[in-house]
């Protein structure tokens, strides 16, 4: 392609401008002196923040209050950190332990695996997108909301945040709702709406219940998190379950985590054949 001269300048302009030049309002380390974190001094202005508040400040640029901090911590603590090494992401950490890899490698790999479709990152993304979309729909036409929900289910076959593999009910909802009620967040628009969605779905053929993904997404949306902020907030959410799965495996006999005999591979492919 023969680029036009004026286009040539435009194309390169971004890279030339950014060469050895990062303009940012995120923060910086001043070696031996101080750290600026989104426009505030970490050691004198943010020094009393709990870690969750600092995390959310980093993500959103907004400071949360102690009630919000408790809510966001409770979502992590009660909902996604099960120390069961059979769970797919936890199992990665346990495999790292039994294979005598390092903690960070096992946990990083498990965290990456958590960005999954049937649970974790992609499911949470879908759930908050749905609750936001659903509230818009409800506000536009409340009388037609049941049709909206049923149409979503019909066209997409799933509604993120509703239904659950293995079991129908979600044991995490009552304990999280107790915290929500205690904090006074029980009457918020997205939250009310997800219970209405559940009511509609329970009347349908599939009788789907809300799962924790739907509830947590509604609570976060009510606190003003965008889809991207919510996804970022949840990246480390599974950590309290993942880390002990690694430790437990690395503290037991090497290679002893669910060993598999050769005949546990059920081969369903081509018959034995010759290469030549």
């Amino acid at each position, binding site marked *: 392609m023969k680029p036009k001269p004026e286009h040539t300048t435009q*194309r390169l302009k971004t890279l030339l401008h950014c060469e050895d030049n990062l303009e940012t309002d995120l923060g910086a380390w001043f070696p031996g002196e101080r750290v*600026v974190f*989104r*426009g505030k*001094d970490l050691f*004198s202005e943010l020094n009393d923040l709990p870690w969750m508040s600092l995390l959310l400040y980093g993500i959103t640029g907004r400071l949360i209050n102690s009630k919000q901090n408790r809510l966001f911590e409770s979502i992590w603590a009660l909902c996604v950190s099960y120390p069961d090494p059979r769970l797919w992401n936890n199992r990665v950490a346990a495999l790292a332990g039994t294979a005598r890899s390092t903690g960070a490698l096992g946990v990083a790999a498990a965290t990456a695996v958590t960005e999954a479709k049937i649970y974790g*990152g992609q499911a949470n993304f879908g759930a908050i997108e749905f609750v936001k979309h659903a509230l818009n729909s409800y506000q536009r036409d409340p009388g037609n909301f049941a049709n909206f929900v049923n149409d979503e289910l019909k066209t997409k076959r799933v509604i993120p945040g509703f239904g659950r593999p293995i079991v129908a009910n979600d044991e995490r909802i009552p304990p999280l709702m107790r915290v929500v009620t205690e904090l006074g967040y029980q009457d918020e628009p997205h939250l009310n709406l997800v219970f209405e969605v559940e009511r509609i779905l329970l009347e349908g053929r599939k009788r789907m219940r809300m799962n924790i993904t739907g509830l947590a997404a509604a609570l976060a949306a009510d606190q003003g998190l965008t889809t991207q902020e919510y996804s970022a907030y949840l990246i480390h959410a599974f950590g309290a379950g993942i880390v002990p799965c690694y430790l437990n495996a690395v503290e037991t006999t090497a290679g002893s985590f669910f060993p598999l005999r050769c005949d546990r591979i059920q*081969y369903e492919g081509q018959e*034995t054949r010759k290469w030549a």
Partner: protein
Amino acid sequence: MAKEKDVIHSRIWSEEPEADNPFAAARCFCAGYDVYGEVIHKASWIEYVYLMFRGERPESAQAKQFERLAIALANPGPRDHSVRAAMNGGVGGSTSAACLMAALGVGAGQFGGAHEVALAMYCWEQCAQDLAQWRECLQSPPSGALGEFWPDLEHAPGFDPYGQSCPTPVLQTLELLAAGKPSTRLRWLSEHREELEADADGPLAMTGVAAAALADLEFSIEQGEMVFLLLRLPGAAAHALEQRKFGWRRYPFFSDGLHLSNDPGPTTTAKTENEHETEA
């Protein structure tokens, strides 16, 4: 009745155990071929990789084409984002796996990475060799086509939004692969490159050549994405090890490169502490 044990279902791999140990394999078969009894003697590495993904041996021309692609992708060089990620692991003394994980995590992206290749392969699937459809696809890139949780696509996949003209290595690779077989898409890409570049508002990139080559080799989009990730690891590994030896002192830190737009300046507390240190 005892519950049946869980099994791993596979069309790729089967094993026969050693007589004295059910946990050790005596013979391993890949798609029906005896790996240690025969494949290791007769196959090239690239043929074996192709077999794993496709379930069948490649024809000799396919194997040659695949190997050439593997060489083209093996090392994007130390300025590439994925290799830089691996080198950041190297200079800090991170573990070898961390360096490769860094390369994979960064090289997975849709700006020069494996997801861009997947999206370009998606364009091939949608547009085949129809210029009008390509125009539509390149001018309105298929953001979210392979998963809405990915960041929005900001350029036409397979093309470089910052490029001036198609770089020589990209042209050399395209020319060589288009002359080989299979190359239906590669030849069409070579013939229509300039029109496509105009529609994409940028020159063809190596991701675009890789996508066409992987599609010609009959890899699915998911397989192509995986293969691209895999094939770029050698360079990342070698550069990470090299930088581990050079060390962080000889590696760019961009000391004067960060410009903070909202620096509050030293606070009273910080000033006081520094003054104490000076006094001490």
